[in-house]
């Protein structure tokens, strides 16, 4: 089954990509929880939204407004606006998520009653929050662009406070989509870096693995079986990042693939060939094995890194899709024909496969060249026959103690 072999290699590779991307996203999550980059992106996005690039006016007011201030620890210390935003920016103590309603209420409140948290604005004498009030005091915002947005939100609400809040929240949400897009792109760049590091450190050369899988029937079958059990279990890509990491590492380690450096034999990067020159003398010529030694690992690593960039959910979905394709290609493997007859007692009910094996002389002469003897282990051709648990009948010759070969060992 040539087609299914390729399909199985594909399943194996998708599965390995899934494991690698799980490891990479777990590492990325680890870095994120340390740096809080998401918070930095959010803060940056809000500054852009509020046309306050240096966080001195309205952006600062929003962040220090009690509705937002309660979402993070310590004081508001904005990043210097000259620092470029990257996937490794520190978010400090800032919140990594601000509910859109909190944001809208805070903005509306600032517009209506000013930024100060002292004096009359906080007391019982404070004016009641209304659209009218917000509209009259909109200059409190001291930011033309935001004033314009707020006036628009208030005017289209036609006196309905909730509607005005919803308008502002919608404006905030649309900008947040942009922020998460930017964050995702930065993350993918970082994932590529992490993926490349992991690929080189763990030596995940996908080309070598594909080669190995194509030749090793047993390993391929084991891997596909493993992938099959994982594909059914969507909790495999869930859980905490630490659990993901341990799970993926354990799966990789259990797979006995050409992964890691300990199996790599260092050979000189050239082939030596004997060449006879014009004068008839023979001398060795070294030929650099550029593809096998340089490009193949490079491309193999790069492919693994690119795969990590796409993320674990993508590979999990793909794995499931390929599994479906496979189950339609190979219906026999899903449901082998069951037979109820006892195959040990009668030989005339054997399948053709069995018959072929039985016909083989028991003592097959060994091939003279061991190299030729390396047969690809096929799925058991004699899977239906086995030996034990069959009582020896009278015709069976029993081995006497005297006929046993001598033993060694067991004595100190």
């Amino acid at each position, binding site marked *: 089954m040539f087609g299914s072999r390729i399909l199985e290699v594909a399943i194996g590779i998708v599965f390995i990509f899934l494991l690698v991307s799980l490891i990479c996203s777990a590492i990325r999550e680890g870095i994120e929880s340390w740096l809080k980059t998401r918070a930095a992106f959010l803060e940056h996005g809000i500054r852009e939204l509020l046309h306050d690039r240096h966080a001195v006016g309205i952006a600062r007011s929003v962040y220090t407004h009690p509705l937002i201030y309660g979402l993070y620890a310590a004081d508001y210390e904005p990043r210097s606006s000259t620092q470029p935003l990257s996937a490794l920016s520190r978010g400090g103590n800032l919140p990594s998520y601000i509910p859109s309603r909190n944001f809208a209420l805070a903005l509306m409140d600032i517009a209506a009653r000013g930024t100060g948290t002292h004096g009359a604005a906080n007391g019982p004498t404070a004016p009641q929050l209304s659209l009218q009030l917000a509209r009259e005091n909109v200059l409190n915002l001291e930011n033309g662009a935001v004033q314009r947005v707020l006036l628009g939100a208030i005017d289209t609400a036609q006196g309905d406070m909730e509607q005005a809040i919803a308008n502002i929240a919608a404006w905030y949400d649309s900008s947040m989509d942009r922020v998460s897009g930017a964050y995702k792109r930065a993350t993918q760049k970082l994932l590529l870096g992490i993926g490349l590091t992991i690929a080189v450190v763990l030596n995940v050369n996908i080309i070598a693995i594909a080669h190995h899988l194509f030749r090793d*029937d*047993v*390993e391929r*079958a*084991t891997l596909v*079986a*493993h992938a099959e*059990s994982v594909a059914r279990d969507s909790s495999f890509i869930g859980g905490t990042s630490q659990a993901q990491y341990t799970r993926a590492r354990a799966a990789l380690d259990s797979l*006995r693939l050409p992964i890691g450096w300990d199996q790599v034999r260092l050979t000189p990067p050239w082939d030596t060939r004997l060449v006879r020159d014009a004068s008839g003398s023979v001398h060795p010529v070294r030929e650099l094995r550029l593809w096998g030694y340089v490009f193949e690992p490079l491309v193999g690593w790069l492919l693994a890194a690119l795969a990590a960039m796409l993320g674990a959910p993508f590979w999990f979905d793909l794995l499931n899709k390929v599994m479906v394709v496979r189950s339609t290609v190979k219906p026999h493997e899903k449901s082998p024909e*069951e037979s109820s007859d006892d*195959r*040990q007692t009668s*030989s005339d009910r054997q399948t053709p496969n069995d018959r072929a*094996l*039985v016909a*083989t*002389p*028991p*003592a*097959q002469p*060994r*091939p003279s060249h*061991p190299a030729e*003897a*390396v*047969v690809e*282990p*096929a*799925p*058991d051709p*004699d*899977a*239906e*026959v*086995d*030996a*034990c*648990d*069959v*009582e*020896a009948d009278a015709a*069976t*010759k*029993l*081995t*006497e*103690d*005297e*006929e*046993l*070969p*001598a*033993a*060694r*060992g*067991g*004595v*100190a």
Partner: protein
Amino acid sequence: MSPRLMWLPDVLHGAGLKVSLVPGWETRGQDSLGRILGVICHYTATPDASRNMPTLDLLLKGRPDLPGPLCQLGLGRDGTYYIVASGRANHAGRGEWNGITTGNTNFIGIEAENSGRANDPWPAVQLDAYHRGVAAILREVGRTAASCCAHREYALPSGRKSDVNFAMDEFRQRVATILGGGAPPVLIPAAETGGRSRPTLRRGDTGQFVTELQQRLGMPDSQAVFGPKTEAAVRAFQRQRNIVPDGIVGPKTWAELDVMRAV
């Protein structure tokens, strides 16, 4: 790399086990073994407790409907491993363990001599050798105790096979203990301590102590050579005295021989 299991004797011997090479083991069994991923435990179901490994011949040659070898290893009632084949053997049949369905290609089969009946309890020495042998193989191929199973656990449809009849979870736990370095093997002392400090004798030995042994066993025309006949006589004597019938004359057997003379 040769797929043949040429390492089997050394690995088992290194685990403190008695190992016996069945002539021709080096080339017996086809070359089409894959990587070893586990061990399947069988019993022979031969109801004959009066011999150490009565099924050996059958394991080598197979049956009319099934060519031999029928396993890689036979395990005698005295705990001796008979290395039957270094290549592929027809032991598994259809089944599945840990997702692997190619039993004959990827599992080593051990056939232990036992009838599997209630009136045939497993000798402690044989069961201990079973644990140690499986542990030694799994260590060699880099697998854990979870990779060994009973044939009845492997065979499909389930219930097709009844071997082996001991609790496998307990078995695997014991194997795991041995893999973890616990429970070193207990060896027969090389000589008596105290008394006449007679050496431990086994097949192949010669000398005055062998002559003495043969006289005690009542063997005529003794040649002072510990051959297969002497070994069989020792086993018969040991069976009669309810000590391990391994044909090795260690301190316990010497003591029993002394008792016999005193009576």
